[in-house]
């Protein structure tokens, strides 16, 4: 498991160390260069000074061969660690050592006549500046050991690195602690999520979350809200369904009891017929409940297909609607030339429920007619019946689940139009529900939203 804390810690420590190392390297190189420059200048000045002292006669040189070289006074070393920083030699042009500082080696520090050079003297590398005085015929050599220079730089760098070694663990601790502190809201969120039960869908409350966590909290709260709404919907649907099944079941039971108790064959037959009606109604209710929950549960809207409307309506309305006889059904010929792009199952469900609704509200011998209604935009596939229609104040409620209006049919469940509405929303189609103007009756149809789903557009094929 990768922890944000560990990861942040490693990144921060690595970055800090890297920057530190880089800075140290930079300082090392830069210091070394500066030091070189300063020390070289010193060599040069010392050489010139010695030269001028010789010229002014303040330094007496041994003039003859075999005589010991004169001693040249140089500033005494100030630091214990860097003693004998400078050595000086004065050579005659003919190759005699005619003067040297104390501690300077007896072999020549350099073979150059002038300028800087590096040379191994007595097993040690030296940096030497040579200065030639042609008038007096001497060469002044001033040098220092490179080892000394390196030690200076090394000591300086050590002075930088040593505190770092002490500070890094301290820094590590601080980083660890502050990352932990920074992640505290996240931990609080985790704890609050861990602590809640499966039924608890209330919004998370973690005080005032920082802006990085707020989107997470908001998203989670949004999700909780959606789940709670879905569950509530499911719960109320189940309660409604159970409730709606009770009345037909009570009717069934009562009629069966009547049939059992009646001695009069006429009463018994009547009760059995009523039982049949109740069974039909109950099974229709169950079928619709299943259709409704299938619609609710379907995650996807299914694939849209080209459907020739006429035959599809014939197919969907072929099975007998229980409880009604003598209803005439007409399917307008234009529908046979009309195709619609829609999911076939949704189409079937919509047509079947609209048809059942129309048949159930029709009077004996009434006409149920399917037609293409060009008055609506877009044109809608419509069924009209000769029933009582829907009171205007109820027309907006008939698509509510389990709503049964004043003009209810005895076998209605209050689900049919709700199913149609849900299925049409799924199919991105509009539901057109109006009372007939020419006579009592209902026109119920569906068109397809052209703007929302170009794929679902209703097209009329010319014959």
């Amino acid at each position, binding site marked *: 498991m990768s922890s944000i804390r560990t990861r942040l810690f490693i990144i921060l420590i690595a970055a800090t160390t890297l920057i530190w190392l880089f800075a140290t390297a930079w300082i090392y190189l830069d210091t070394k260069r500066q030091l070189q420059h300063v020390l070289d200048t010193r060599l040069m000045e010392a050489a010139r000074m010695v030269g001028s002292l010789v010229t002014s006669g303040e330094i007496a040189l041994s003039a003859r061969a075999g005589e010991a070289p004169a001693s040249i006074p140089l500033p005494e070393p100030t630091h214990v660690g860097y003693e004998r920083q400078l050595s000086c030699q004065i050579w005659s042009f003919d190759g005699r050592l005619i003067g040297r500082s104390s501690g300077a080696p007896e072999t020549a520090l350099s073979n150059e006549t002038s300028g800087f050079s590096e040379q191994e003297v007595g097993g040690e590398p030296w940096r030497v500046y040579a200065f030639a005085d042609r008038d007096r015929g001497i060469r002044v050599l001033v040098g220092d050991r490179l080892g000394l220079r390196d030690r200076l730089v090394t000591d300086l760098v050590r002075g930088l690195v040593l505190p770092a070694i002490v500070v890094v663990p301290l820094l590590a601790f601080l980083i660890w602690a502050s990352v932990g502190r920074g992640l505290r809201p996240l931990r609080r969120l985790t704890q609050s999520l861990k602590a809640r039960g499966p039924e608890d869908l209330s919004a998370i409350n973690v005080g005032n979350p920082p802006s990085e966590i707020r989107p997470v909290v908001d998203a989670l709260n949004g999700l909780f809200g959606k789940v709670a709404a879905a569950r509530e919907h499911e719960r109320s649907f189940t309660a409604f369904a159970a409730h709606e099944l009770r*009345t037909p079941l009570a009717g*069934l*039971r009562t009629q069966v*009891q*009547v049939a059992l108790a*009646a001695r009069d064959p006429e009463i018994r037959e009547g009760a059995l017929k009523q039982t049949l009606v109740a069974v039909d109604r109950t099974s229709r209710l169950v079928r619709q409940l299943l259709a409704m929950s299938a619609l609710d549960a379907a995650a996807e809207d299914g694939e849209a297909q080209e459907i020739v409307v006429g035959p599809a309506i014939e197919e969907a309305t072929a099975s007998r609607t229980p409880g009604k006889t003598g209803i005439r059904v007409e399917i307008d010929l234009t529908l046979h030339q009309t195709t619609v792009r829609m999911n076939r199952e949704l189409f079937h469900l919509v047509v079947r429920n609209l048809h059942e609704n129309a048949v159930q509200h029709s009077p004996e011998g009434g006409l149920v007619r399917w037609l293409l209604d060009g008055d609506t935009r877009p044109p809608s596939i419509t069924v009209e019946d000769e029933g009582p229609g829907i009171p205007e104040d109820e027309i907006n409620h008939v698509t509510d689940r389990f709503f049964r209006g*004043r003009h209810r049919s005895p076998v209605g469940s209050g689900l049919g139009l709700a199913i149609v509405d849900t299925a049409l929303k799924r199919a991105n189609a509009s539901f057109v529900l109006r009372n007939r103007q020419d006579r009592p009756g209902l026109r119920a149809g569906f068109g397809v939203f052209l703007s929302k789903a170009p794929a679902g557009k209703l097209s009329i094929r010319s014959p």
Partner: protein
Amino acid sequence: MRILVVEDDAVLLDGLKVGLGLHGFTVDAVASCGDARAALATAEFDALVLDLMLPDGSGLDILRELRRRQDATPVLLLTAKDTVADRIGGLDSGADDYLGKPFDLDEVAARLRAISRRAAGRATPTLSWNGIELDPGRRTVEIDGNPVVLSRREFSILEALIKHPGTVLSKDQLADRLYGWEEDVESNAVEVHVHHLRVKIGRDAIETVRGLGYRLRSA
């Protein structure tokens, strides 16, 4: 016993009408609040069976109106909503009893007898007067311990009279107890039934009060 059933489900309404009829009740059946109000305005019922969810309102409205008028007619609520809260709400609105759907027809009949008995201030399930013993539940009549077989109408007349012994009930009042609206009543139907009843339980058990009606002979 004449009762009014208010229920909007056609199958259930029919079942209650026929089934309670088999139990000896005279049943008027209506399917909406409006029809129930009309029925209550025109006739007197011994008990009311009331569904709660009706197309044009709630059965509870009918119940509250009834109680506001100081009408003490016993009311049995029959409903699909039977959570504890629903039951409490129903009973506190003035209902005498509460049955959740689906129910047993015999239980409905028994509860109707029970609430009407209690409404009449009786605790015993049987009615007796001068050696006549009538059991509304089992629908039996005994005279001095000997069982007598009565027709449905005869039983209803005797039941109505024995509930208020000594009180005169008019022919119209008796006819109300015997027939629902939809039944055609011959003008002399009550007289015919009283005549048959007298043959079975004794000629002088029922007194005719001229111009007023009938009553059971006092001891």
